């Protein structure tokens, strides 16, 4: 029996991220001496001890069923939303195609048939962009949520602690100086992300992850890496420069079928591993000693989760560029949708994909043509981050 699935705390009542830790603390105490604790929390229950216990068990079951129902419906809604956005992103563009056109093209891809006109316009031009957008969104969302979850802080998303910048700098170096492309470029960006993550986390480790230091270190290191990136860029020629700049903003416009396979493989493998690890990782939020007591091997779990998250993040960054704020936003949104007691890594991935596709649709239709998708996500994400900061600042020290 795991703690998260036996939670008696009513998730519907606890909405916000700020109460996350309080809720966890309560769950722990609930599990230690559950009956007494809850009895004292609900003065309206009267009767004998046995009746109380029965009543409590019934409430527990109801809450659990409610939680499961809620997560299932959230997952279903997100999946449907993602499908709808997928179709919409394929349909809208310079020319608008109908639902049946798109379906027949997709069917044609599986049957190996080509439909004159449509197969090129939808299948070759739009399809890779949309698929890569969705996959990168999943990767950003899962990676961001993993970081936020593991380090127990919303501000600990890879965007903010400099890991994205590390992957960036490596990728720009790879493009401009080494002339890498495709899978080798992804691998190089991956190395850059890993190196930066290791450095930032190692430098800020104070008998455990120290979030304040982590964020400050990340920002400082990102500033230096950005300087390095611009230095590499002014040595690039005009064309490389423009490609790199577009890519640095996070753009899907260069997406091609050749990129689909590598990113699919990485997202599927790392994503499934992360979800599998999530049950263990989830227990880390009760503190490492409690988690150890529950049979979690703390350090290996932490390292594995961080490693997988960095792999996802760097692979996505290498494919689409750092689409701003997706990895930051996906976690909190999924968290709000599912309630605080459910590990929401997979759903954060779905939210990320929805965010990217929705922003891509907006980006295609902004009055100024050819705006990269990253501009749209940063226009949405920036203000939200500021609002969240203000809200957090009003309740506790950030």
């Amino acid at each position: 029996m795991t703690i998260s699935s036996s939670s008696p705390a009513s998730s519907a009542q606890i909405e916000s991220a700020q109460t996350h830790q309080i809720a966890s603390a309560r769950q722990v105490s609930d599990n230690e001496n559950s009956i007494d604790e809850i009895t004292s929390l609900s003065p309206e229950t009267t009767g004998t001890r046995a009746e109380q216990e029965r009543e409590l068990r019934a409430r527990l079951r109801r809450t659990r069923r409610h939680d499961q129902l809620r997560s299932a419906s959230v997952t279903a809604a997100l999946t449907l939303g993602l499908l709808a956005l997928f179709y919409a992103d394929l349909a809208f563009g310079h020319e608008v195609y109908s639902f049946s056109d798109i379906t027949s093209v997709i069917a044609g891809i599986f049957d190996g048939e080509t439909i004159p006109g449509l197969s090129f316009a939808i299948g070759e031009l739009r399809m890779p962009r949309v698929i890569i957008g969705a996959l990168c969104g999943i990767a950003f969302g899962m990676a961001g949520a993993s970081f936020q979850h593991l380090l127990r802080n919303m501000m600990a998303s890879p965007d903010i602690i400099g890991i994205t910048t590390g992957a960036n700098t490596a990728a720009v170096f790879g493009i401009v100086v080494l002339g890498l492309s495709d899978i080798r470029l992804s691998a190089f960006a991956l190395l850059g992300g890993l190196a930066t993550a290791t450095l930032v986390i190692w430098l800020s480790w104070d008998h455990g992850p120290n979030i304040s230091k982590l964020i400050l270190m990340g920002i400082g290191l990102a500033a230096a890496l950005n300087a390095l990136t611009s230095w590499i860029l002014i040595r690039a020629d005009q064309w490389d420069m423009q490609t790199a700049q577009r890519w640095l903003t996070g753009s899907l416009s260069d997406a091609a079928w050749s990129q689909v396979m590598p990113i699919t493989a990485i997202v599927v493998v790392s994503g499934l591993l992360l979800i599998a690890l999530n049950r263990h990782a989830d227990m880390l939020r009760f503190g490492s000693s409690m988690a150890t007591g529950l049979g979690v091997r703390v350090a290996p779990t932490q390292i594995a989760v961080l490693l997988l998250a960095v792999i996802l993040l760097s692979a996505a960054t290498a494919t689409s560029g750092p689409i701003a704020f997706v990895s930051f936003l996906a976690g909190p949104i999924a968290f709000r949708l599912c309630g605080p007691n459910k590990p929401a890594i997979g759903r954060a991935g779905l939210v990320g994909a929805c965010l990217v596709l929705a922003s891509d649709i907006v980006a295609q239709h902004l009055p100024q043509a050819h705006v990269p998708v990253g501009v749209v996500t940063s226009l949405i994400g920036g203000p939200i981050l500021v609002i969240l900061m203000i809200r957090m600042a009003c309740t506790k020290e950030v």
Partner: protein
Amino acid sequence: MTATKEHTRRISPALLYALLVVGTIIMAMLSVMFGSRIVAPSDVVRGLTSGASDIAASAVRTRIPRTVLGILIGAALAMAGALMQGVSRNPLADPSLLGLNTGAAFAIVIAITFFNLATPASYVWIALVGSAATAALVWAVGSIGRFGATPLKLTLAGAVLSSVLSSLTSALLLPRAQNMATYRFWEVGGISGARFNLMLPILPLFALGFIIAFAIAPSLNALALGDEMAVGLGTRLTLVRVIAWTGAVLLCSSATALAGPIGFVGLVIPHAARLLVGSDYRRIMPLCAFMGPLLLLAADVIGRVVTRPADVEVGIVTAIIGAPIFLVLIRRRKVSEV
């Protein structure tokens, strides 16, 4: 860094300033001597005093504006950093980390894109507006909440706003290849394009900024004691804050307009100064005025020497020197202080 007497004062002020003056003169000499062509010290003197027109003498004369600009900008950034750290009681304040450069950059790109401005003399006013607006915004966002402007919140607010602004900047630049070429050289932060006629119109702003920095230094000391104590001592808090921010914004946006974003000078130098003379801003300010130029000229010379004959822009070198110092500063701080 707290205002305690833990800092050692090993060197007498007279000796310190003598060393700094000599150091700056030597650095300025080196800055004029080194480049894609290295000239002898005697050529420097000849280039300065006579009207000789041989290659060495004219190389010297073209490098002098660059050296002067380096001195000006080094002093401006270091003192702007000291002002910001003093007024926000935030040891991590730095013009570039708080997003002022990005604000200036965004304003400049708007100006290039929509108003066809192309000379640094016109940049400066735009940059001033951009970085002042960003400073106000970062300050406003960072100081909301019970604990006021903690270092973490301010830095975070700076980083977030920078990220949004730089996204918008590239959205404006991407469809306009020509503007991008203009912008990207500005963006790196270099002093190689220095010309006296571009610097002259902006000198009054620097002068005003320097005067403010020196004049406000005693009030910064009072501010360091905490709001209540400062008020008790007769300090008008809001007035001091507004004046000090104005000085900081004047200094760093003028510097940014002339040389592009140069990071970490404003962060590192005030800390170094504090280590040497303690936490009295009346001593820190003049020291910054000397140490900033020393660091900037040194970084510029290093940038010219390592990849000769090409330059590494000074903004890159200061970032590479400054980042490890920044990391050490955070590493040494206790958890509660951050």
